[in-house]
Each structure stands twice: as structure tokens, then as C-alpha cells.
């Protein structure tokens, strides 16, 4: 369902983040992307929701070439992809509930229905009792769980995460890894770029290594 065909990505300045990458990921897989910093993991993830566009090649998501997608069509692609970022990108001017509400508001889900789904998502990540809390009052682990709740509340078919366990202690990181597993169990395709391979090892269907923008053994 996600296919990379001869994908290359060069950033301005000529640095090649990815080159001639061929890759196929099936629906329902749980992929761990590993590699050193600068190996191209983040770039690979960003190509899927068209946050970055490839310099060459095609990125096919659900049968659509994302690389050639019109600007106006990108929002609708992204609504089907949950994203978890290393720096979470939570909005600090609103409480946990409203942060998770954002994707549903964007998608135009009716308010009452949306409220129910927000609580369900918060429940899944164990934050139901903190829905009124402002993000700043949450611990690092809680913030990351909140970010995950926001990523899954619109029930995406793909969930991508860039270093979701960075800055977290081992116990909390293991909880996060188990959470991704739980979403994968209900059919969500999961891609995680991480340095904590061992945490995800019990759950992953495949590990993809990257080295200097190419597949590594």
C-alpha cells in the first residue's frame, strides 16, 4: 500500500538525503526504520504525507502518487495518515481535549460525535482523566501519549512516528512502543523511525535499515 519507486531526495545545497530508494510496505505491517542520524529516516517518513516532495521517483500511497499530487489534494491525503513527531507539536494554548479535537475539527466531524471519539482516543492512551489539563502541565511521557491520541483520533490507516520515544525514560518508552503495537493489532499500518529498536523489536513485522540515504542490510 506504500511503495517507493527509485525515490531520490536532495535538499537545497546538494545534500542527497535519499537516493534510488525502492521499497514496498504492505497494509498492516509494523515497520521499524533504523539508521544513524542523517541516514534519511525522517526524510523517508516526510515523503509519505507529502510534507516533503521527492526530487525524483514516485511515492505511491493507497494507489496515489503522492509526489505528483496537487497542492489542494494534500490535506485529504494527510487526514488518512496519523503523524507523531519527535517534538510532538502540541498546541500549548489549549487543553488536552482540544488538542485531540483538532484533527476532527479540521475534518468537519460533528461536535457531539467528535467529543465521543476524542474521549475514546484519550482513553486508549490512558489520559482520559487529564482531558482538562493544559499540555504544559503534562509530563514528557504524557505529552507524547497526547500526541499519539491526536494522531489516531481520526482513525487513519497509516501511522508514522519519528523518534516517538526520544527523551523518555525506559519504562515510559516501553509503554509507548506497546501502544503502537496495539494500533497495529487493529489493522493500522505503522512506521516508526527510532534509535530504540529493541523496544519495538517484539512487535515489528520488519526492520528497514537506512544508511546514507540507501537501504542497508
Amino acid at each position, binding site marked *: 500500500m506504500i511503495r517507493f519507486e527509485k525515490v531520490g531526495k536532495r535538499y537545497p545545497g546538494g545534500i542527497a538525503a535519499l537516493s534510488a530508494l525502492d521499497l514496498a510496505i504492505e497494509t498492516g505491517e509494523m515497520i521499524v526504520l533504523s539508521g544513524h542520524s542523517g541516514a534519511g529516516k525522517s526524510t523517508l517518513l516526510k515523503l509519505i504525507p507529502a510534507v516533503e516532495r521527492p526530487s525524483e521517483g514516485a511515492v505511491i500511497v493507497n494507489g496515489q502518487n503522492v509526489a505528483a499530487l496537487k497542492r489542494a489534494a494534500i*490535506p485529504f491525503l*494527510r487526514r488518512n495518515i496519523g*503523524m507523531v513527531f519527535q517534538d510532538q*507539536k502540541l*498546541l500549548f494554548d489549549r487543553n488536552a481535549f482540544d488538542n485531540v479535537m*483538532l484533527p476532527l475539527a479540521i475534518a*468537519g466531524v460533528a461536535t457531539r460525535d467528535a467529543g465521543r471519539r476524542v474521549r475514546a482516543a484519550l482513553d486508549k492512551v490512558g489520559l482520559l482523566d487529564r482531558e482538562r489539563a493544559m499540555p504544559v502541565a503534562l509530563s514528557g511521557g504524557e505529552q507524547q501519549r497526547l500526541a499519539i491520541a491526536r494522531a489516531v483520533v481520526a482513525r487513519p490507516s497509516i501511522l508514522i512516528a519519528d523518534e516517538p520515544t526520544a527523551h523518555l525514560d525506559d519504562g515510559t518508552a516501553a509503554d509507548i512502543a506497546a501502544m503502537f503495537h496495539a494500533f497495529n493489532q487493529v489493522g493500522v499500518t505503522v512506521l516508526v523511525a527510532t534509535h530504540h529498536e529493541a523496544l519495538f523489536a517484539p512487535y515489528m513485522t520488519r526492520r528497514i535499515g537506512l544508511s546514507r540515504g540507501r537501504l542497508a542490510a
Partner: protein
Amino acid sequence: MKGWLLQHRQASAQAFRRLASTPLNTLLGALVLGIALALPAGGEMLLANFQRLAQRIAATPQISVFMALDATKKEVAEVESRLRKHPGTREVKLVPREETLRRLKESEGLGEVIESLPRNPFPDAFVVVPGDESPAALEAMRSEFAGYPRVEHVQLDSAWVKKLDALLRLARLAVGLLAVVLGVALVAVTFNTIRLQILTQAEEVEVSRLLGATDAYIRRPFYYFGALQGLAGGAVAWLAVLGATLLLRLPVGELASLYGIDFSLHILPLSDSILLFALAAWLGWAGAWLSLIRHLSEN
């Protein structure tokens, strides 16, 4: 359709929240816009009042017909009967020269001067109230009456009304120009406010885009913000004009009564009030639109 309405409700609520989150800025912004709008709105209020006054005074134009000094009573009576038979006149009043002399003799200060005159300097005169008050009809009657035998001079008392009308038209143009200039200022102020808003909301814009927000979704709250701020400015202007009207009402009424006119200042007419609010909101929206084109990044 329901989803669309929901998104508009959410966008307007969001704009309200953003305005409410910085009450001082919002208040100052509304004051700046309000004062700018109050000038043309106040001018419009004054104009509307003047026009009402002018219409009331001009409602009974008169034609004064002066006979020659040496016209005989018979000649005067002949002209009188012709005036009375004329289909265009509604009322004809003869002011005999003796009566004019007597009235002026009685008047303070002028009496002695009149007394010293060797003979009556005043002619017999008619005050004619025309039935048709259109300028063309008045003009036609003036030239017709001037052709009657022994008629020396015909005076159209509506000439000054014409001058007043021209003056009012000029004033209206000036108010219009003022409105355009200050409207541009309003757009510029909103342009800048929205620029700052975009900077403040940069994070929310970025996150919303990553979560699949369309351009329309991102822009909507800014449009509402601009329009609401414009509307607030319109409200300030309306209140300022209302306050000025109420303050001026008593002194203007007193001044008018000194001239024997029963007149009181009216507040801005409803149609002008609606126009003020609509224009203020629209200009705010336009400022937001320009600012979004210029400042909202496409990524």
C-alpha cells in the same frame, strides 16, 4: 452543508477567542478603526440633518412680483387677477406699498430714515405661492410674470435653496472622499493586525496543515477576525456619532430657535447605520484578505 456551517461556526468562535485573548489590543484596534470611521459617519449624520432642514425650508418656495413704482391701482388689480387666474399659482397675496411703508416705519431704527424720505420708495408687490414646485415650473412662471404689463421685477426665493443644494452636494462629495481615504486606512490597519495574527498563530497554522487542514480552513478564522475587528470599529464609530448627536442636540436646538426654526438633531438614519456596519466589516475582511495573500506561507 452541515459540515460547512459547523466549520464556519468554529472559525468564528476561534476568531472571537483570539480577539478575547488580547482584550487590550482588541479594544485599541477597535478604537483606532472607530475614530477613523467616526469622521465620515459624523459628517454623514450632519449632512442628513442639514438636508432634512433644507427640504423643510425649501418646501414652500415663493415668487415675489414687484410692480413698477408708478403703476396705477387699476394696473395692479389687473396683474392681481391675472396671477389669481394663472393655473400655476396656489396662493396670491397682495402687499400694498402703503402697508410696506407703514410696517417699516414701525420697525426700530429704520423709522426715522423712512420718515425723512420725500415719497414712498416701495412698490406694490405680490407674494405668490406656486402649485408646482419643480425648478423648471418656477423658472417658467418667473419669466412669464416678468412679461406682465407694469411688472418691474420678479424674484424667485428658491435661488438660495439651489445654492444650498449645491453646497450640500459638495459636502457630500467631501464626506465620500473622506470615507474612501479612511477606508483605505482601515484596510491598512487590518492588514497589519492580521499580519501579526499570522505570526502569533504560526504554530497552529503549521500543525493544522500537518493534520490535513485545507487553505480555506486555515484562512477562515483570519477572515472572521478581520471582519469582527472592522465591525467592532464600526460599533465604536456609531456610538461616537450617537454621543456627539446627543451632546449637540440641545445647543443646536437652541440655536435654531433663535432663528425661529423648530429643529432638533436626529441620530444617524437606520440605512446609514447599516451601511456603516456593513462597510466596516467588509473593509476588515478585505484587509485580512490582502494580508493573507501577502503573509500566509503556502506550505
